[in-house]
C-alpha cells in the first residue's frame, strides 16, 4: 500500500490529462517522404480555423509522456510505502533508574562486569530476534518524564546499537506508570509492550497486556546519602558532613575526600553493617573553600559506583548588602540588631546596597536595582495607633512566612494606605499584614522591590517579639533569592536550583544552554529572568550563555551544578529479583510499517528521466 507525505503533490497528476489534451489537439504528424507533394495541395492543413480534435494515436511519444507525467506526479506526492503485514512492533519501557547501571555479578579479572542494563539489552535482543528480522523497536527510557531513546519504529538491530552506545541511566527511583502510558499510546495501532527492569515484576503494577521482565538480582551496595559543605563552627574553613549506608555485605568502607587537584584531604576505613547509616564530619581546610571536593566510598563489594561518590562545588556566595538609612532611634536600632544577626549579610552604604531601609519621606525613585523597605508610621488623616490585632496575614506571601504576631502589639500604625513620591503621585500599597483599616506591612503596587513596614518600633512590642527578626529575615532572604546567579550548586538528582539572570544576561541574544560537562547532552533553556534548573542526570552541568561577549556580566558560564545520586531506595539493591510476567492476551498484531521509500523515489525519478529521454528520442527529427 502506498501513501503520500504530500498529497497536494498529486495535483501534479493533472499533467496526465494535460498530455492527453495536447495529443488530442496537437497531433504530431510522423514524417513521410513522397514525390508529388503538389498532388496533396487540397488536403494540406492550414491553420485557419484553430485547432481541431484529432484521433488519439497510440504513439511511443504519447505513452512516454503519459508515463513521465505520472511518475513526476507521484514523485511530487512523496510516496511512502506501507505494508499491512506482520512486522512486529515492540515498544520497550527500559528502566531508566540508576540501579540498572549496577553490576550483575562481581567483576572477573580486569574485565568490566556486565550491568543489569547490559542484561536487559541482551534480553531485548533475544526477544526481538525471536520475533523476526523485521521487528521494529520503540524504546522508552522510564522516568518521571519518560523519553524515547530508540526508534520510534526502527529496525531492532539499529536501535540496539544506539542503546549500547548510550551512557548508563542515572535517574532516581520513579514510577513506571507514565512510561507505560506512553507505551500504550504507541502500540495503539499494533504492537506489544515489554517492560525491562531490575525490579521484581511481581511487585509492580502494569496492564495485563504488558510483558515484564526483570534482570535484577540482589547485590551489595554502599550509598552516599548525604554530602554537604557547610561553614564550620570555627571562624575559618568548612565542614563536610557525610552520611552513608551499606546495603548487604559490602565489607569495610573507605571514605576518601580529595581536593580539586586530587590530593587526599581525608581518608578513613570504617567497618560497615548492612542497613546501618554512618555519619562523618570532615573538616575542610580554608584553602579548598573555593574548590570542588570529591567524596568517594569504596568497598570490596559495591555493585553501583554511581551512588558512592559525589563532587561538591563551593556553595555560591550570595551576600546581601544592607544599608539602614533611618534616623537614630528605637526603630533603627531594632533593624540593625536584627540584620546583624542574619548570616551572610553585609552592612554597606546606600549606593552599594541591595536592600535599603529608609524612612517614609517622599521617595525620589522606586529604588532601581536595589530593594527599598520604607519603615515608619505612614502619615494619614488619623493618628498612628498601636494595635494588638486581630491581624490579617497573607500567609501565601513569603514576607509573612513564619510570622504569627501572637501577643504582639504593632505600634505606630499610621493610617496611610499609599506611598507619596516627590512628584506628588501616590503608589498604593498591597497589604501583606493588616489590622482593621491599617496596612501594617505590604508591597507597593507598581514598583517591584519596594516594601512598607508601617511601624514605629519605639511603640508597641513588635521589636521584642520573635516575629520581628523573622519579618526582617524574610525581607533579606527574599532579596537574596532575587540576586543574580544560582541559589545552590550541589544537587541530588531530581532536585532543582534557581538561577537568576542579570538584566544584561536576560536581554542578551543567543542560546542559553544547560550542558553536561562529562557527556554530550545539551538542553536549551528559555532565557527567563529567573529559571528553575533541573539537571537530568548525575555529574557536572553548566549553564552556558551563548550570547556572552566576554565583558563584565557577560561570562559564558553562568552557573555550574554538581549532581549526585543519593537515593536510598535506588541504592538498596538487596531487594532486586529476576522474573518474567507474560501477558494473558494473545500475540499482538503487527503494525503498519511506514517507509519513506527512498528506493521508490529514486525509481520514479529514474523512470521519469528515462521517459523524458525516450520521448526526446522518439520525437527527434529524422
Amino acid at each position, binding site marked *: 500500500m502506498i501513501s503520500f507525505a504530500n498529497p497536494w503533490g498529486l495535483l501534479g497528476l493533472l499533467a496526465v490529462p494535460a498530455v492527453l489534451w495536447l495529443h488530442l489537439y496537437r*497531433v504530431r504528424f510522423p514524417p513521410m*517522404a*513522397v*514525390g*508529388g*507533394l503538389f498532388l496533396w495541395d*487540397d488536403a494540406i492543413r492550414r491553420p485557419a480555423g484553430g485547432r481541431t480534435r*484529432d484521433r488519439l494515436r497510440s504513439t511511443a511519444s504519447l505513452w512516454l509522456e503519459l508515463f513521465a507525467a505520472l511518475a513526476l506526479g507521484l514523485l511530487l506526492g512523496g510516496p511512502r510505502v506501507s505494508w499491512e503485514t506482520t512486522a512486529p512492533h515492540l515498544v520497550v519501557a527500559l528502566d531508566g533508574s540508576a540501579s540498572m547501571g549496577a553490576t550483575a555479578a562481581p567483576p572477573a579479572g580486569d574485565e568490566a562486569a556486565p550491568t543489569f542494563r547490559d542484561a536487559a539489552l541482551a534480553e531485548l535482543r533475544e526477544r526481538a530476534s525471536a520475533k523476526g528480522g523485521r521487528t521494529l523497536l520503540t524504546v522508552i527510557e522510564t522516568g518521571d518524564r519518560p523519553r524515547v531513546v530508540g526508534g520510534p519504529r526502527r529496525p531492532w538491530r539499529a536501535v540496539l546499537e544506539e542503546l549500547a552506545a548510550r551512557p548508563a541511566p542515572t535517574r532516581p527511583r520513579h514510577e513506571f506508570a507514565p512510561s507505560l502510558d506512553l507505551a500504550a499510546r504507541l502500540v495503539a495501532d499494533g504492537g506489544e509492550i515489554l517492560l525491562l527492569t531490575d525490579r521484581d515484576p511481581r511487585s509492580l503494577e502494569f496492564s495485563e497486556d504488558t510483558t515484564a521482565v526483570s534482570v535484577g538480582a540482589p547485590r551489595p551496595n554502599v550509598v552516599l546519602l548525604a554530602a554537604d559543605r557547610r561553614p564550620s563552627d570555627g571562624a575559618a574553613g568548612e565542614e563536610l558532613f557525610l552520611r552513608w549506608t551499606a546495603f548487604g555485605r559490602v565489607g569495610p568502607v573507605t571514605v576518601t575526600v580529595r581536593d580539586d587537584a586530587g590530593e587526599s584531604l581525608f581518608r578513613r576505613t570504617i567497618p560497615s553493617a548492612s542497613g546501618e547509616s554512618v555519619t562523618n564530619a570532615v573538616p575542610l581546610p580554608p584553602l579548598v573553600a573555593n574548590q570542588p571536593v570529591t567524596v568517594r566510598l569504596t568497598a570490596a563489594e559495591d555493585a553501583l559506583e554511581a551512588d558512592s561518590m559525589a563532587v561538591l562545588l563551593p556553595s555560591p556566595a550570595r551576600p546581601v548588602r544592607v544599608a539602614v538609612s533611618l534616623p537614630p532611634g528605637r526603630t533603627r536600632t531594632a533593624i540593625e540588631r536584627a540584620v546583624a544577626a542574619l548570616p551572610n549579610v553585609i552592612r554597606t552604604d546606600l549606593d552599594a546596597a541591595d536592600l535599603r531601609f529608609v524612612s517614609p519621606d517622599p521617595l525620589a525613585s522606586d529604588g532601581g536595582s536595589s530593594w527599598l523597605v520604607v519603615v515608619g508610621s505612614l502619615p494619614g488623616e488619623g493618628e498612628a495607633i498601636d494595635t494588638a490585632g486581630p491581624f490579617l496575614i497573607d500567609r501565601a506571601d513569603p514576607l509573612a512566612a513564619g510570622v504569627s504576631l501572637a501577643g504582639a502589639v504593632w505600634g505606630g500604625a499610621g493610617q496611610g494606605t499609599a506611598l507619596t513620591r516627590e512628584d506628588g503621585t501616590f503608589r498604593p500599597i498591597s497589604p501583606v499584614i493588616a489590622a482593621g483599616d491599617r496596612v501594617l506591612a505590604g508591597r507597593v503596587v507598581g514598583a517591584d522591590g519596594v516594601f512598607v513596614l508601617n511601624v514605629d518600633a519605639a511603640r508597641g512590642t513588635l521589636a521584642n517579639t520573635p516575629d520581628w527578626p523573622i519579618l526582617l529575615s524574610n525581607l533579606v532572604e527574599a532579596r537574596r533569592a532575587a540576586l543574580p546567579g544560582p541559589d545552590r550548586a550541589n544537587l541530588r538528582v531530581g532536585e532543582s536550583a534557581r538561577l537568576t539572570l542579570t538584566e544584561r544576561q536576560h536581554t542578551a541574544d543567543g542560546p542559553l544552554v544547560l550542558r553536561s560537562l562529562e557527556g554530550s547532552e545539551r538542553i536549551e533553556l528559555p532565557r527567563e529572568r529567573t529559571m528553575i534548573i533541573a539537571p537530568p542526570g548525575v555529574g557536572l552541568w553548566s549553564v552556558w550563555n551563548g550570547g556572552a561577549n566576554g565583558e563584565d556580566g557577560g561570562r559564558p558560564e553562568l552557573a555550574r551544578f554538581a549532581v549526585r545520586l543519593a537515593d536510598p531506595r535506588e541504592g538498596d539493591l538487596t531487594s532486586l529479583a529476576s522474573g518474567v510476567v507474560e501477558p494473558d492476551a494473545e500475540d499482538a498484531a503487527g503494525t503498519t510499517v511506514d517507509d519513506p521509500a527512498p528506493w521508490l523515489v529514486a525509481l520514479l525519478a529514474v523512470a521519469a528521466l528515462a521517459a523524458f529521454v525516450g520521448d526526446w528520442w522518439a520525437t527527434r527529427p529524422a
Partner: protein
Amino acid sequence: MTAAPALPAADPVTTDPDVLAVAARYTLSGPPPRAGGAVGERVGRTAGSGLEFREHRRYLPGDDVRHLDWAAFARTDVPIVQVFREEVARDTAVWLDGSASMGCDPEKSRLARSLAAACWRMAAASGDRPTLHLLSETNRPDPRGRSLDSLDGPVFSGRGSLVELAAQHGLPATGRGVRVIVSDFLFPHDPDALVRRLARGTDAATLIQILSSFEADPPELGGRRLTDPEADEAAEVTLDRPAVAAYRARLRALIDGLARACRSHGATFATLVAGPNLNELCRSTLVPAGALGVRR
C-alpha cells in the same frame, strides 16, 4: 580486436537475377533502325548491303546502282534492284530520372534502377547500342551515357524535375532509335509539351512511370508530415477519406494526361507500381502496353 565488417553493397541491381531474366525474355519494342546506322545485328528498313536477300523491286532514284539486277533488267527492260536486308545497330537510350523523389521509397528506387538496367541489357541482348543517362542537374548530359554499374550506387539526388532540366538544356542529345524514359513524372508539368520534348529526335519513345505503392494508392493513415525531398518542402496532411480521394483524382488526371500525350506523339506509356517483382510487372504491364516484346 576484430576487423570491422565490410559495408554491404549499395543494393546492386545490374546483376540481379531478376534483371538478367527479364533481359533474356523480353525485348524493347520499337521500329527497325533506319539505314545509316552502325553495322549491327538488326535488319534495316532500306535496301542495304547485307548478305540476306530480301526481294526485288523497281529501281527508285537514290538506290545504289550496284544493286541493279542486270539480268532482270535485260529480260524485262525494267530497272529492278535486288534488296538485301541491312544489318544495322539500333541506338537505345535509357533515361532514368535522377531526382530525389525517385529515391523516397526503397521499393520505388529499386524498381526504377532495376528497370533501367533491364532495358539496357535488353538492348544489349538485341544487338543494339544501349546508353544509360541519369537525368539530374548533378550529371552533365553526355551522349555517351554512363556505365551500367552506376545503377548499383545511389543515383537519386537531383533537385530538379525533368521539366526544369529540359528548360536548362539538361537533357542528353542522344541519337535516333529507341528512348526509354523512366521517371515518376510527379512534378507539375504540361504533359503534351513534356512528352514532345522527351520524344524529340527519337524513333520510338517509351515513358515508364514508376510509383511507390503509397503514391499509387495512399491509405487513410491520418496525420502525416509529407516531405518533398526535391524541393525541401513539407506539409501537414491529414490522410483521411476526402484527402485521399482528391489525391487519387489528381494523380489519375496526371496519368491520363501523360497517356494522351504519348498517344498523340506516337510514344508508349506505362505506369508501374512498386511491389511485385520485375518479371511480373513486365509481363502484366509493359508487354500489354507495347513497351516490351517477348523475345523469340
